[in-house]
């Protein structure tokens, strides 16, 4: 089963642990309905659409309300520290979260004790804190965008906000940034770099580049990275190897974006609706 850890952008949303379903543009967990806009709800919605196509069960999610003050995340860090060892996920995806190295290290310590360690995927705040704490190699897949890749490549930056200009500069080539991220042990076993072209890479270099279809208007749309993380997490959980799942997920996400005929004002749910069609095209075409 796929497990997902993330936040809901509402201050009073309680800590919930449960199987999540999708109804229209809402995800449902326990008695809670959450609008699928961007962030973790968009990631979960994309994962559910993908799992449904792959004939797999809905994900089990750990969610808490947090609007950036870290209060909710502290509760969820504690929940994970106390109970993650008793779970048996095949794949565990970590998403929007308040970076806190001290609390994160406690969770990592518990995961390392699990009899069967799940495949670990991190994006957003969890990817930031994994790099901050020097734990990037503990993870199997990171899904950075180009700016976040520059952060991984900068061995001195504790957050993307401090990425040094000579690394962040647009003239830097993505293969060089990938190489530098691995050189300083700041990358997961695999990287799926999302952008104008999507790259799948490991410590030996670029494994594949996915560049079609090209839809420029996707870059400003909030949530397109979240959907990619949701799709790849679901494909890995369905049994695809990380390299194949990453390339397929990039194709699905780009196609879903293409089918939505987006403008820079498009909202992410319009793209999520196209994921089933994109999955069919990627997995059923020769």
């Amino acid at each position, binding site marked *: 089963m796929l497990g997902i850890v993330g936040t809901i952008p509402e201050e009073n949303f309680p800590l919930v642990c449960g199987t999540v379903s999708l109804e229209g543009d809402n995800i449902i967990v326990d008695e809670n309905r959450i609008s699928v806009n961007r962030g973790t709800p968009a990631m979960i919605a994309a994962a559910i659409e993908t799992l449904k196509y792959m004939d797999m069960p809905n994900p089990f999610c750990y969610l808490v309300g947090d609007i950036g003050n870290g209060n909710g995340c502290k509760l969820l860090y504690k929940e994970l520290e106390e109970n993650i060892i008793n779970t048996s996920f095949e794949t565990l995806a970590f998403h929007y979260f308040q*970076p806190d190295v001290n609390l994160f290290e406690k969770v990592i310590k518990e995961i390392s004790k699990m009899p069967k360690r799940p495949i670990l995927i991190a994006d957003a705040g969890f990817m930031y804190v994994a790099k901050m704490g020097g734990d990037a190699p503990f993870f199997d897949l990171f899904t950075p965008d180009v700016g976040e890749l520059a952060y991984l490549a900068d061995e001195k930056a*504790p957050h993307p906000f401090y990425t040094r200009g000579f690394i962040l500069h647009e003239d830097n080539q993505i293969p060089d940034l990938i190489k530098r991220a691995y050189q300083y042990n700041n990358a997961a076993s695999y990287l799926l770099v999302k952008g104008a072209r999507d790259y799948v890479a490991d410590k030996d270099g670029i494994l594949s580049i996915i560049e079609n279809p090209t839809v420029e208007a996707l870059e400003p749309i909030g949530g397109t990275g979240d959907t990619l993380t949701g799709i790849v997490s679901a494909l890995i959980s369905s049994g695809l190897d990380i390299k194949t799942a990453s390339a397929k997920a990039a194709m699905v996400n780009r196609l879903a974006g293409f089918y939505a005929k987006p403008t820079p004002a498009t909202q992410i749910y319009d793209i999520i609706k196209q994921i089933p069609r994109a999955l069919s095209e990627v997995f059923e075409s020769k």
Partner: protein
Amino acid sequence: MFNRFKKKKLEIIPNKHGRGILVFENTTEVIRAENILKSKGWEIKVMGPPPNIRSGCDLVIEFPLIEELSIVRSLSELNIKPLQVVPVNDDLLDPVNLIHEKEYGKYLMIRAANMKITVDRDTKIIVNVSGGGCPDVPYLAGQMVNRHLDEAPQPKDIGHTLCAYALQIAYDRMVALC
């Protein structure tokens, strides 16, 4: 406010630079202090903390050490109390200073660090906010998208993290250009 970060005590050794840093409990307090001190004309700079007190999503304020008493008094009058005031002994990290602009017809996207904001230049409506990884990003997007640039709440007022701070930089540039 929250107590996210446990700051380690700094060992204070003689300072060669004539600059000090104010260490706060969280980024929200840093942003408040920055606004107050800048409005009073002090020469201060928001920077990344030295490695020995770094624990997560942090900022510190660099200031002329000789002004310590006046600066701390000004902040205390508004109930803002730094956790520590220490000399600068390490190289501090500069916040990102590269800002990218990209046009999509009538839309303008501005990116600062890992945060992007996109505005319809005809209507000045914020149509999208993207990027980032801290939990206030989806919250800020929810509060800002579909609002007029002049009427939307600003990240510095409702955000808490470095992602919010980066979004404020992008927002300020957008306001200057639109």
